[in-house]
């Protein structure tokens, strides 16, 4: 594999505005209820020493994607040139096994049962443009690049995970944050409806 694209979320700059979600929905003309990208908020502490953090999450385009592993019709695959997990819509039988396999809730199904997931704005990438969620982010909290490039960004940490998610974060400085982030990420699949998730630690 020549390279692997991934996303980076600078958690200290993510302000819950959902511009990335809106840009994604517009770019891909998603039906109501579908969100290839979601905004997840988690809380820590109790009033008045209470605080929350937010991150934005899409498909992680994992190194060892569970969805690809379980797909019986080879409709999902990892694209060799950039590591993006792509869907061959013609091959997909809408069996939904992949939806159960993905631990991040990144795979959703539309009203007509069709599989929905982030394609890393492949058509934009082909034109040399950044994914629309990254372009719009008003605070530059969301960035993209190859995993090599992202690893070089000051403070960036790759998120650990069995499947090797291509997700980096710049955690805020407080000690509890990373632990809380991991806990929130582990629960990203709850609820079944792709609305913002609130994890109260």
């Amino acid at each position, binding site marked *: 594999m020549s390279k692997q694209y991934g996303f980076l979320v600078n958690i200290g700059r993510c302000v819950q505005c959902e511009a990335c979600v809106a*840009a994604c929905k517009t770019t891909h003309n998603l039906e109501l209820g579908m969100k290839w990208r979601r905004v997840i908020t988690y809380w820590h502490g109790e009033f008045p020493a209470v605080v929350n953090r937010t991150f934005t999450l899409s498909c992680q385009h994992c190194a060892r994607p569970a969805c690809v592993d379980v797909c019986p019709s080879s409709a999902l695959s990892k694209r060799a040139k950039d590591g993006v997990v792509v869907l061959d819509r013609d091959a997909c039988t809408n069996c939904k096994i992949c939806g159960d396999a993905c631990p991040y809730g990144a795979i959703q199904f539309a009203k007509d049962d069709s599989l929905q997931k982030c394609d890393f704005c492949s058509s934009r990438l082909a034109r040399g443009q950044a994914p629309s969620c990254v372009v719009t982010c008003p605070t530059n909290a969301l960035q993209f690049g190859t995993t090599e490039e992202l690893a070089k960004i000051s403070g960036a940490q790759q998120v650990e995970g069995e499947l090797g998610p291509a997700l980096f974060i710049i955690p805020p400085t407080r000690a509890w944050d990373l632990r809380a982030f991991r806990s929130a990420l582990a629960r990203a699949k709850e609820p079944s409806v792709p609305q913002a998730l609130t994890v109260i630690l």
Partner: protein
Amino acid sequence: MSSKEPKTRKKAPLDLSVKKQPKDRVVPTFCGMCGPNIGCGINAIVRDGRFVGVEPLKESPVSKGRLCSVAYSAPHWVYSPNRLKYPLKRVGARGEGKFERITWDEAITLIADKLKEQKAKFGPESLAILGPARRNYHAYFNRFLGVHGSPNYGTSGICAMQRAFGFTHTLGGYPGPDVAHSNLIVIWAKNPVYAGTSKSNLRDILDAKDRGAKVIAIKPTLEPDAAFADVWVPVRPGTDAALALAYIHVIIKEKLYDQDFVDKWTYGFDQLAKHVGPLTPEWGERMTGVPASQIVEVARLFGTTKRVCFDVGNGLEHATSSSDAIRAIAIIIAITGNLDRAGGNVFALGRGAGGLGPKPITLRKNFAKQQMVDKLVAPAFPREFQPNAETTTSAYYGIIESVLTGKPYPVRTIIAPGTQPTVSNRGPKRVLEALKKVDFFVVLDVMETAEMNYADVVVPVATMYESDYPFEFQGGWLMARRRVIDPLGDYKSDYEFWIDLAVKMGYAEDFWGGSIEACMNDQLDPLGITLSKLRQHPLGLRISPAGGAKPPTYENYAKVFATPSPGLSGEPLLPQGKVALYSTTLEKYGYHALPQWVEPPESITGTPKLVAKYPLVLSDFHTSKSYMAGWLRNIPTLREVLPYPTVQIHPQAARERGLRDGDWVRVESPHGSLKVKAEIYPGVRPDTVMMLHGWWQGCQELGLPAYPLCDGGANVQNLYSSDIKKATDPVVWAMASQTLVQVTKIEEQGSAS
């Protein structure tokens, strides 16, 4: 939309980052979702004659190639089934909603005939035009009012003007936060995240944080800015004046003020020191709910940090102690030595485009007359201070009351352009009574409004995507607006409405002979360009003053402190030529010379007898990630993010009431009750609940119904006092948005979600 797109594409000259198909047309213009005002730059995508999408315009210095979530919903807004497309004339009873379709010209004629008749019978002041938060079309109807002869520009008393009054009468100007050079940024009663996400100073604040600046957020709930702040001050709603006074107490008692500045440039320090003597941190804690220890800690940060700036929002303006809170904060800025210094709060005088800008079109000369001031139906600021800016101003709610009471005289025609009187003001029950009673009511909007069924004439106007006007100018950047699509019905822009109406009234001479192009060119004149020439630069032009932009200057005290009042007196705002810690001007006109603490109409400390029945403080905010005030609930892509009206309640308060997240609850105050969902929110004061303002509209696509405007609905205004004596600031017309409530579960609605 097909997910398959051509792999090779020819690069068009204006194609910046647009996902477009070969035949798509790309129109660089401005977003119009939170304006009309200075907009973020967009590339609008048109496919087969239909506006299909929006992408950020990289070249825009306002938004720098970024957009917020609302910007993307523009096509849904433009093609909403709730759009007004044809002028309507009421044929049924008020409120019944029976209309017949008329033409644009018929609508203009109907309105003009009525205004001419009333002007002859009752005088021109019988007309009032309601303004919501300041928008760029205000200048056009301001001009109309002035030429017509009515002083009654009805400001809603919620935005900017009250701040300007408090600041200018204390500091001579309204200094903005110099975030870029600050070491401590105080966000007070403002939400920089939702208030224009992609064009606000949000990025600057985050950049400052990255270089080590600290942020303090003062507000009742942990909104996103409070979440990234270093210190959150969870103040009880409506008590900001008490908090600011307690801060001043600590700053003076511990001698944390800038002695040199105080000696040289302030007036009345001894009186101030005496005044705040009893206003201890412990007193502050009782009034505001903020622990005394934190009041001391934060006051010390204000007094000991070099370069502190205050970014204040209109949360301050929704309180009975609005002007006092603003004056007290202005005093903190001054005595801590942060006025017009780098990293503090700086005056516009020393920076910016050097006064270069379009020609104002309000025609202030028509307002700056004693007879106009005398004729004000409900002065938004005391008559002694009128005109308070470019125009005279009446209180929005005072205009409504005049219809019901006839005092001092009844307004006969109300025109509501882009404002919803039942949703944006207190007392919706009174407002509906007034709208039933008023002689003539005209609604001007792009979308069905909350009270359009009461209108005699409904005039649709163009969205900003259907108009070639106006141009925009900010920070030396000038760009023409371009229409993305043609209007979907028989209507024109807001701007053309006022020009057409003026011509029909016989005011053509003052309205460019009826030509909007001439109107634009008149405004562009000082910038040395015409609209047609500007259009040759679709991405706009940089305009700088002769000799280029000058570096900022600081400490412009002598100049700014000599600024004359915009009122008829023209006397200096600061008679001593110094910061008015003690205002002899306010004293002269019968108001308190020093900032006071005035309780909200209902509060834990002010009306303790009510607490047994209504134990929780309620207030609201009007910005969110999805909506603009009382609009946009009908847009499905936005509504799915925040589908239901909620009341944010602390987990402990929820437990005490047996509430779970999402339960339907009744929120009841002494003035009315609402039905909303409980939102368990760990980041709200346990003694406080908060709502989002502006709920009334349904959303067809999501099958969500409209809600009643008064009891049983979700319109927070229904819960507040509209008693002018109790609920209004003693100096300026600002109305409280705080009350006491009880929250109870509605059992039978448990499955209604």
